[in-house]
């Protein structure tokens, strides 16, 4: 091996990297980005779970129970509901992850040395949160019961009335066995559609520019709109086809059942495909080579896996990272698909998410077309 020849290649390679801004970014910025994102956002513990409380007793004891739950920082009593149905609705809509229903004779039963039952409704569609919430609620409830017994023993002495306590009845909604796969598969569908569509679309347009065929094309009578749509249609079809493929596999191999409206699911999935398409188009107007297109696509896709709440619950993430998730269309699509598949809810429960997904789709299409037209000129 000749050292001079070898070093010549090494030096040249460094020059390539230095000149290619996109590669530079990947080499330097991306690791930092990923470290901080993943470092802070990946939390296997669950914290600050929003809870809705339907307190039918309004007694000192019922308030004490809620306090007990709050005290751990696991649960936040964000909402006080006025009925059973309201609590269920809030869990359906994803406004809270846990609901607590306290019966009207709570304090009386406890003070009388009997057992009072409280019901916990837990959102099972997010298996990670659900498991922790389940064990926390059980633990805290029995803790609470023990506290009461101690207190009463202190007051009334060993000859006092028999110890009361509370019995927590947890009900895990939607995914009673808390199989994480039920949670992951719908999310995976969203991820697959996004990734494939973005990459293919970005490549297609950049390839034309990279090969120099765009110059020949510009001099023909072709109109920008004909070029754009003509290039996109095959990828829209591929996106739909991929979606259908993944859905069929999910339903057969992974036995996913769609609880809610299939039509709604198809409609919004189509919308999301178009959204991903627009993102791919935007990338193609920025990237100059297919390599850059790939790098930019990756830069977008990797964080989106995390920020959208695909695996790790967003609620547990630090505020700035949590907020970043709001600009990703994938976040809304995941909520929609999980809502329809696991919770069986309809559009009214997902009004915010569907609205925002549509908004993003139109916005991205608009930006993509504007940028593309400018590029062609």
């Amino acid at each position: 091996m000749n050292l001079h020849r070898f070093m010549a290649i090494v030096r040249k390679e460094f020059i390539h990297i230095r000149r290619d801004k996109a590669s530079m970014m990947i080499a330097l910025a991306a690791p930092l980005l990923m470290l901080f994102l993943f470092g802070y956002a990946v939390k296997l513990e669950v914290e600050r779970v929003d809870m809705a409380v339907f307190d039918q007793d309004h007694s000192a004891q019922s308030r004490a129970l809620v306090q007990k739950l709050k005290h751990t920082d696991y649960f936040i009593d964000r909402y006080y509901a006025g009925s059973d149905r309201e609590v269920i609705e809030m869990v359906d809509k994803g406004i809270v992850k846990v609901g607590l229903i306290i019966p009207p004779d709570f304090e009386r039963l406890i003070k009388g040395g009997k057992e009072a039952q409280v019901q916990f409704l837990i959102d099972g569609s997010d298996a990670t949160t659900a498991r922790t919430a389940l064990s926390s609620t059980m633990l805290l409830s029995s803790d609470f019961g023990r506290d009461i017994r101690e207190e009463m023993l202190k007051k009334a002495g060993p000859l006092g009335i028999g110890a009361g306590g509370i019995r927590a009845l947890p009900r895990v909604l939607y995914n009673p066995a808390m199989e994480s796969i039920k949670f992951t598969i719908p999310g995976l569908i969203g991820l697959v559609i996004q990734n494939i569509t973005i990459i293919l679309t970005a490549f297609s347009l950049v390839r034309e520019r990279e090969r120099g065929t765009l110059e020949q094309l510009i001099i023909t009578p072709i109109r920008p709109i004909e070029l754009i749509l003509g290039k996109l249609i095959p990828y829209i079809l591929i996106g739909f086809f991929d979606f259908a493929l993944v859905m069929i596999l999910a339903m057969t191999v992974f036995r996913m059942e769609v609880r809610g409206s299939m039509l709604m699911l198809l409609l919004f999935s189509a919308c999301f495909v178009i959204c991903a398409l627009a993102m791919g188009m935007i990338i193609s107007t920025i990237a100059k080579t297919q390599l850059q297109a790939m790098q930019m696509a990756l830069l977008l896709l990797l964080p989106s896996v995390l920020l959208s709440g695909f695996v790790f619950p967003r609620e547990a993430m630090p505020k700035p990272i949590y907020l970043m998730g709001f600009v990703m269309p994938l976040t809304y699509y995941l909520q929609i698909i999980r809502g329809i598949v696991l919770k069986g809810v309809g559009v009214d429960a997902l009004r915010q998410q569907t609205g925002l997904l549509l908004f993003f789709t139109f916005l991205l299409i608009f930006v993509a077309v504007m940028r593309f037209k400018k590029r062609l000129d």
Partner: protein
Amino acid sequence: MEYAIEIHNITKVFGDFTAVDHISFSIPKGKIFGFLGPNGSGKSTTIRMLCGVLTPTSGSGTVLGLDIVKDAEKIKQSIGYMSQKFGLYEDLTIKENLNFFASIYGISGIMKKERIQEIMELCGLGEKQHAAAGILSGGWKQRLALACSLLHQPRLLILDEPTAGVDPVSRRVFWGVIHRLARSGITILVTTHYMDEAESCDLLGFIYRGQLMQLGTVEEIRQREGMHSIEDIFISYVERVSDIKVTGSFMEIRNHLD
């Protein structure tokens, strides 16, 4: 409309760089115009303005009677263009490329089939019609590019260095086709660095640093400059304007050691 191209004081400025500086010429129909000049002299910029792809900073012109600013879209439908770099799809076959461009120019159905057959015969492409354009040699690629530019029967052909990097035999075959097209009434604007090709043109124009140095028939230019070889005339322009001293023949270069 006796002129295929008529431009008047066309100028294109990019920032503070003047790429094309007040160029005017008129090309009669059915003639072959050789557009000569060193690399970076403004040839491609002028061509883009003629094709309706670039808007002139100032000046006016018509191509086939159509205004280059207002009727740019119509111009695109009426002219054929061959770019310097191979601008066709390497993973498509000859036939698929022809099919694509025929459709882009609005040719369809039976007419499309017939037209493609005709063009393949004219340009000698039939034998390899199912070969991917990417594996073709330089000469074949140029013939394919020419074919794609002729499908819609344009009255004007603009060829940007069509024979660059092509062997002497293929070059002559190619120019045989060009002259045949010119005889049938098609106007042709060609840029080239091969001075022997230039000598066979009807009109020549020299452009250097955005300015038109000379315009006329081959004979007129020879008389004005008092030289016979177009190549020598070309070199003398460059020397005159830029103070570079260039040794004429390659044999002289070989024998001189300075």
